[in-house]
């Protein structure tokens, strides 16, 4: 079960905002996480507690194919990203590296900054504890669920 505080951002949060290109000579996720979202919110890394949830609008992760973006988010302590939609390369990358992501337009619209949120991936449910609301998650196709359950593409390939 994922439970944490929501940190809310807008539409079209691109990979340059998630991890600026000037840090792409780094490969260590811990080093990348220090600069996560810094061009959008210089205080991001300081306000994240382990297990927190990032909530965004449409087209989250658009732009570059850099896997450094989901790696930085995952290492920053964010346990799950909720968005009304994801850009396709970010979507693949997040699943491939085992960063939980869920699509829910309603959750994206209703959750506010600082809300206490619970995400139950198995039940396909998001609970907004602060506002006493539930939102349904759009379930992923079976093949993607298989990748997610394996923990990512590397693990899936190793099990094969």
């Amino acid at each position, binding site marked *: 079960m994922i439970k944490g505080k929501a940190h809310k951002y807008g539409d079209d949060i691109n990979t340059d905002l998630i991890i600026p290109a000037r840090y792409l000579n780094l490969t260590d996720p811990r080093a990348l996480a220090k600069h996560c979202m810094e061009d959008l919110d210089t205080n991001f890394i300081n306000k994240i507690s382990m297990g927190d949830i990032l909530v965004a609008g449409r087209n989250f992760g658009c732009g570059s194919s850099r896997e450094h973006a989901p790696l930085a988010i995952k290492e920053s302590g964010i346990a799950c990203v909720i968005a009304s939609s994801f850009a396709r*390369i970010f979507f693949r990358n997040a699943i*491939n590296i085992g960063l939980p992501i869920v699509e829910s337009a309603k959750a994206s619209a209703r959750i506010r900054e600082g809300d206490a949120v619970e995400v139950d991936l198995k039940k396909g449910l998001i609970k907004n504890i602060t506002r006493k609301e539930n939102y349904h998650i759009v379930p992923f196709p079976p093949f993607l669920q298989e990748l997610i359950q394996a923990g990512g593409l590397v693990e899936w390939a190793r099990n094969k």
Partner: protein
Amino acid sequence: MTLTEKILARHAGKKKVSSGEFVECNVDIALGNDITAPLAVEKFRKIGSEQVFDREKVVFVCDHFTPSKDIRSASNCLFLREFARTQNLRYFYDGGKAGIEHVLLPEEGLILPAELAIGADSHTCTYGALGAFATGVGSTDLAYTMATGKCWFRVPSTVRFLYQGKLKKWVTGKDLILYTISRIGVDGASYKTMEFSGPIIESLSMAERFTMCNMAIEAGAKNGIIEPDQLTYQWIEARAKHPYEPLTGDGDVEEVIEYDCSQVDLQVSVPPLPSHARAVEELKDVTLDQVVIGSCTNGRLDDLRLAAKILSGKKVHPSVRLLILPATPHIVYEAVKEGLIEIFLSAGAVVTPPSCGPCLGGHLGVLAKGERALATTNRNFVGRMGHPESEVYLSGVPVAAASAIAGRIIHPDEVT
């Protein structure tokens, strides 16, 4: 089936595929660069692989932070160089052989019609201009392909963009793609294929077709594609490194969107999204600190010729730094032979080595706080070229070259 569906079906060993279906395809070319390939090599080893699936199909290009901008970047290139050597990769591009990957690979004849390419770089979709299926992926996907020769896809539905009418003076493929993105939005083609067609597309040079497919990702598309024609085959003839079997699409598309190009003005996208395109006339008097002409979007020989035509005998405005960014060593060589570089240097431009550096604020022309650039590149996100409080406007080559002379955004007719 559409062209994209036919290519995916062939590479999945199936007679038919339909949109929404998951398929595993054989990959003809798997590309990585000095930013994405080091992570891919780490993942490749985690999978437990020792040897890449085909030493002629895994291609690495050191082009992003090269010539190496600092010690970390140099170490990443060294790491790739050693991997390429031990794996005996046939196509490893480094030093004087390296150019911007998405211009280099077609120029080298490594990707051909109806083939399937994945690249750990979002602008891999460029190769669709050759009638190939090409899409950007992350480092883990690249690692999986390096190990197995395969990659999974959800078959995309196709939106056909039909370009009719007549192009206005100076309008190029870059204006058409900026205009298109402005109409449908930065997620207007999410997960879909953008198929570019119609009489205007047939009249475009290969360089312009590459430019249009290059920016399909800026509308969220999985791939951009153009049916090959006589021009495509002529272009390929001198370059192809191996035999290929073309395909032609004949199926229904999800949607057809038609544009009358007679109505399309020269476009400039204002920050912070490529979809914020407007007619150049609306942006007159936006002053500039830097102009960048080049990149995987507009750094081909035809682009440089067009820039030279406008800059010939003129001087870059004293308050502007003009960077000319040719995409490959071959293009630099030809530009020297044709006298283009002389024109640029006489105008007061800086000519950079082939590198992705300036486009993504990596190195070579990073912007300071408060500075403003006009670039023929593909993204104008916050901080794209440097400081988060700098700005990037996007345009085609004619507007960029003319604006470098004027020191502000102008229509090329004002200086020619």
